[in-house]
Structure formats: C-alpha cells, structure tokens
C-alpha cells in the first residue's frame, strides 16, 4: 500500500512538471501583457524596459525554470494585473470556489444517487420517465444558459435570490465563509445548481444504468427468493455493487467542478479562482495563470489518488488480490 502511494506520488510529480512546461509553452499564444500594463501613452523604450524586467524576452523554457525555482521556495510571483503576491490572491479566492464546489458536489451526489436508484427501481413509473426527460436538459443545455435562465427567473422575475456575488461572508482566520449568513447561503443556491446540474444528471444516469444491470443478476433474484426486504436488496446489495464506477466518475467530476467553475463563476460574478483565472487570461497575467494551472493539476492528481484508495475500501476483492500476491 505504501509503495503504491509512493509510486503514485512520483508519477504525479512528473505530471505536474509536464503540465507546467506545456502551460509556459502556451502563454506566448495568449497574448502580450505589456499593452495591458502600460497606458496608451507608453513609449517604445518603456515597452522594452518592461519586457526585459519581466523576462518576457527569455525563451519559455528559461521563464519556466525561473518560475519553478521561485515556486519551490514558495514564491509564486506578483500578479501583473493587481500588483499583489499571487499566493495571497489565490488564498483569498480559494474558499469561494471550494465552498461552491462542495455544495454543488454534495447536491450532485445526494440527488444523483437518490434519483438514480429511484428511476431504476420504478423504471416504468410516470415520475421516473418525467425525471429522465427533464435530466436531458441538464446534460444538453450549456452552463452559461442555465445560469442566465436561473438569474432571470429567480432574481429578476421573482426577486427571491441574488444574481451575483457571495453575499455577506464571515472571516474565520483567513477562510471566508458564506455558510454562516443568510445572504451567503442564499447566494450559494443559484450558482451551485448551475455548476452541479450536469454532474447530477450524469451521476443519476450512471447509477440508473448500473442498477438496472445489477438488478438482473442472479444473486439479486436469489436474494428476492430468500424473502429479503426490498430495501435491503436495493440498497445493501444492489447499490453497493454499482458504486465503483460511480466513485470513479464522481471523483473526476469533483475535480472538474473546481477546475471548470470558470463559466459559472463568470456568470454569477462569484469571486473564486475561476473568475480570477479568466481575468488573468484576458490580461495575460502569467504568474496567476501559471500558479492556477499548477494548483489545478495538483488537485486532479490528489483526487485520483484518493479515488484509487477508495476502491480498496469499497471492493474487498482488490484487497484480497493484493494480499495474495504479496
């Protein structure tokens, strides 16, 4: 087990380095930050001086090396756009994104599994059909449109929920939370639905398909023949056996909820790292883009590792195999 984790971590490090290299190779194509940093009255001399100071005249490999050597020492540089340390800015913005991701992820898992099981058991019922049809909206409508529709319905027409921002937040020693105020909780509703809807429908459809598959198996029939209660059959035997693929997908999706909250954060002006990133791309704020991409790849790698470890706890066969080979 320890060897497995260590090997995985070595692989992760390699992935990180490659991601960084690709990122720095790409930055040149995003544009040039100089015109954003100097006003329109800039002289050619100002431009050259700033390019030199920022190291933009260096080959990208050298720029990457400089970034890495500083990053290892915990220095991610100064944002070109805000003139403040990147690490500080990201730390400020991360709680917003993580809280949003947590709420929409929890929503997607709870409702996804619940509705998936329901539609599998009552697969011919009217409600199940209705849910399946509505879920098509979740997978087919773009996030942007869902967000705007929700805003027009719940903010503009009904006036129930805020259309932008996080509401009032409470600062808990560096971590700002919206969970403790009513305006903060209200502000979470629309963005988390927008962000989690796709994942919700995905999990629901996956659970349903897996359940239908499992419910046809012999051991379920025998269980029924033994006279076990429906509840025990459905949840203890059937659901548990559907969970391995569901966990894989959920794990990967949680990664994308955090990494790709960009659109939802832009629509709702949610002050998280996604919005920070999109601003950085528009401004060509290289230090912020680099730090963000590194952070996201660390996160994906970690989530994959956790998912792998979870398999061991859910599927006893994996444990047995490993034990046997040792």
């Amino acid at each position, binding site marked *: 087990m320890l060897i497995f984790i260590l090997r995985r971590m070595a692989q992760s490090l390699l992935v990180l380095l490659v991601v960084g290299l690709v990122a720095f190779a790409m930055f040149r194509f995003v544009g040039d930050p100089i015109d954003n940093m100097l006003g*329109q*009255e800039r002289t050619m001399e100002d431009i050259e001086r700033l390019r030199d100071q920022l190291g933009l005249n260096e080959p990208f490999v050298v720029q990457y090396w400089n970034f890495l050597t500083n990053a290892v020492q915990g220095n991610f540089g100064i944002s070109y756009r805000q003139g403040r340390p990147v690490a500080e800015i990201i730390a400020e913005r991360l709680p917003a994104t993580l809280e949003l991701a947590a709420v929409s992820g929890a929503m997607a898992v709870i409702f996804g599994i619940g509705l998936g099981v329901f539609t599998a058991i009552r697969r011919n019922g009217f409600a199940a059909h209705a849910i399946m049809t509505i879920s098509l909206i979740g997978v087919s409508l773009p996030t942007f449109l869902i967000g705007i529709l929700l805003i027009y319905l719940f903010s503009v027409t009904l006036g129930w929920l805020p259309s932008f921002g996080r509401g009032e937040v409470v600062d808990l020693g560096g971590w700002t939370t919206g969970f403790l105020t009513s305006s903060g909780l209200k502000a979470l509703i629309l963005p988390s639905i927008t962000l989690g809807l796709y994942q919700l429908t995905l999990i629901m459809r996956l659970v349903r398909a897996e359940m239908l598959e499992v419910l046809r198996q012999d051991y379920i029939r025998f269980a029924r023949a033994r006279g076990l209660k429906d509840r025990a059959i459905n949840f203890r035997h059937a659901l548990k056996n559907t969970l391995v693929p569901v966990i894989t997908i959920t794990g990967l999706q949680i990664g994308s909820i955090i990494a790709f909250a960009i659109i939802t954060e832009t629509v709702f002006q949610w002050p998280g790292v996604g919005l920070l990133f999109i601003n950085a791309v528009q401004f060509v704020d290289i230090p912020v883009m680099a730090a963000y991409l590194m952070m996201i790849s660390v996160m994906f790698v970690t989530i994959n590792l956790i998912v792998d470890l979870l398999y061991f706890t859910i599927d006893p066969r994996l444990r047995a195999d490993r034990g046997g080979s040792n």
Partner: protein
Amino acid sequence: MKLTSTLLAATALTSMVAMSANAETIRWARAGDSLTLDPHAQNEGPTHTLSHQIYEPLIIRDTSGAFQAALATDWAPSADDPNVWVFNLREGVTFHNGNAFTAEDVVFSINRAKSDDSNMKELLNSIVEVRAAGDYTVEFVTNGPNPILSANLTNLFMMDKDWTEENDTVKVQDTDGGEVTFATTNAMGTGPYQLVSREPDVRTVLSAYDGYWGKDMFPLDVTEIIYTPIQNAATRVAALLSGEVDFIQDVPVQDLERVASTDGLTVKTAPQNRVIFFGMNQGADDIEADNIEGANPLADVRVRRAMNMAINRDAIQQVVMRGQSQPAGMIAPPFVNGWTAEMDAESMTDIETAKSLMEEAGYGEGFSLRLDCPNDRYINDEAICQATVGMLAQIGVTVNLDAKPKAQHFPLITNGQTDFYMLGWGVPTYDSEYVFNFLVHGREESIGTWNNTGYDNDALDAMIVSLASNTDLDARNADIAAIWREVQDQQIYLPVHHQVLNWGMSDAVGTEVSPEDDPKFKFFTMN
C-alpha cells in the same frame, strides 16, 4: 407615561427618517475593477474612476468636459516667464487623516508621477521642475511654453507627502520588481469619499469624508458607495433589473430597450471620448497581408479613398450598433479642439466613385487583404469588422477577417505586424495635438508610437512638434486645421464612428453621462 413613550417613539422614528434621508448608499457596478489604488501606477479608465472618488487632481473636468477648479483655485501662465505656469491652491483642504494639503504635497506628487515606474509620466514630459512658491502657490517650469499643460493634469492625483513617506510607499507600484507597495492597497486623498474596505475584483466600500472642502459646493447626496465589478453583461443588467444595484456602466446595446422600458429605471446616453477607425499600412513598398506581389495597394491614396467611400457608416450605426454610435469622418470627438463638423461629415458612401477610383489606381480587379480586429475591446468590435468585410467586397477588396482578444491584437499594432487593423482612440487632453502625437507623427521611440501606418511626413512632423510650444493660440489652431486637412486628404485612416456611452440607473439617481466614462459621485443627486 403612555404619552411620553409615544412621544419618545415618535421622536425616534423622526430621527430615523432623518438619518435615512441623509445616508444615501449607491450600489455601483461596471464591467471591470480598478487595477490598483496607487493613483500613479496605471493610466487606465476604471482605475482613474475609483481614484477620482478618493483622490483629487488640481483640476477636474465636469460632466460636460469643461475644466473645473479642484485642488487649485486658479491657474495661468506666469506674466514674467512664458515657460512657467502658476497654480494657486485651495486653502483649508485636508487629507482624510487630517493633514493639511499644501504646495509641498503638489511638488511631491508631481515628482512621484514623473518617476520611472509611474504610468502617468508621459503626460508630464514637458515639465522640467515643479517648485513651491509659498504654501499655496506652485510653479510648473516647462521645457518651452506649454499652452495646454493644464489639460494633462486632470487625472494627476495629489497624495499626502507625509502619509506616503511614513508608509514607505514613495516608489510607485513596481509590478516587475516583485514589490508590493502600501499605496496599492491603501489610499489617503483629499477626495469626497474615503476608503472603508476593499477586496479587489469583489467589493469596494467608500464613505463620505466629513472634512471635505467642497461640502457646501456640491450635491454630495451620496454618502456611501458600494462598488462591485460584474463582468458578465447579462448578469450586470440583471442586477440592475432586480434592484440589487442602483447604477451600472457599460449597458450592452442589445439590452438598452429592456432597461429603459423597465419601471423605475433610466438609461442615459452621451457621445464617448473615443473614435473607432481602421489603420492601413501605406508606408511599406510591399505588404504581407495582401495577395499583390511586389506592390502595396494601400500606398495609393486612391485605393484608401475608395475604401473610405465603400464603408457605409449609417448601416453600421443602424444595424450593428442599434443606433448607439455617431458616424465619424475624423479621428477626434466633437468636444476636442480642432474638430470641425465639416471634416467629421466628410466620409460619404459612394460605391460608384469608389469603383472608378480603384480602376484608376489599377486595381479594378480588386485584391485581397487581411483585417486584424479585436473581439473584446470596443463595443461590437468584431461585428463592425464583419460588416466592413461585406462593404469592401463591393469594390473588389476581399477581406479576410482575423478577430482576436485584445491581448493578442494590440501587440500586432505595437510591433508593426499588421497592415490593416482596427483601433479606437480617446483624447484625454481634449486637444488635437494628442491625436497627432500618437497617430500622425512618424513612428519613433517616444512619439508616433501608435502610428502603424508607415505614414511619415517630415514637414508635418515638424509642425506637430511645434504645436507643443506655440502660445499664439490662433496660429496654433490654424496649424491644427492644416494638419487635419493633410490627414483627411491623404486618407491616412478610415474613421468609422464615435462610440456612445450608456449608463443605466434607477430613477432615484440623478447624473449626466461624462464623456470620459468616469462618474464622479460628488456630483450625483439622489431622491
């Protein structure tokens, strides 16, 4: 007993009503946030707009664009020396920390803004020395008579010398050096509002400064400002429609009707200080963006005139801009010194004449050309370019449109890598000299820096340079007119339109639209 408590309750109620009448909060949203609180670090619209609430320059422009005394009460060239401007300062002004504002602060601030890391330094190029002549008089020594010096000072903010030195933030924000300065995240001005809190890109709160010198001179109805950038246009409009904000800038043209027709909301419109136009590389012998080998069709003035005649500005105004633009014939907004109605009306659509001009120039068969266009900088920029593609096709010019984000588009102009491009230009000094300096003078290290056309006329360059020190205003204006005549005759650029600004607000908010797109809340009324 009962009576007393009723009375007490009534008094409490009255005082509450009185309080709410005095305390008016305005919730304000626009697309972008200010980049920094340091007033000399960025020369950029949203940054200056926020600074204008907290800091003040010597002179400001009111909503009509006219000068208004701010920290200076009057100013004039010195009677003894034509190279010196004398500014008399307002007395009794205090910074938010109580420090008195004096000539020392002006000298300090101007020198700070002239330092290497300042983005404001180019506007102060002509200043050789600033000196205090008494506590409330400052003299600006220029490198020759400068008739329009004051126009360069309207976004030049005054800082408190003591505060800046105490907090070790004399050096202007220095992004590249990896330093974070105190003034980036803190502010200490003389302005009508003081900083309460700020989270960049999220929320900035300002409250009225009790000791403001202009308390009885301006409405100052707004006592608290909550500024939240909302990037997405649809969300910004939704926030106004749902009453979550009171005032927004940058209303998208397709939503104007919607906002204007909503009860309790108003849209106000005014021409912006920005002209949209196309530039053409006419200086090169051969260009890369066309399909003609060994020659440059854009070098022929007949081709440039033909292209100018092919652009149907009225159609762009009606279809692309939904009425929200003013067709332009010259690259200067109407309030700029040197603008004339005749020249601004000179661009007329005439396809037949255009075709015969193309024939005459030897390009009757037409040619193809790449157009570089931004897609996130000006209002409907990409759509304007698309419309232009269709219009130029009518005279045989096949245009391949290459639209990109601004971060990729502007370097093309800076580095001379485009032969046909869109650009927008504002004139912060309200004088044509500014336009000539950047767009008409031949490209050099520090002048003509945005002139990517290759147009370079030594005689004209000399005339442009002489404008800076010509104190005979009539002669100077005659020169300006002559330079414009040449620009128009040579068709150096293809002007498209003057951009129009839209501010959306609740009916309670009273203000005119400022052509600089910089609301100054001390002028706002609330009811």
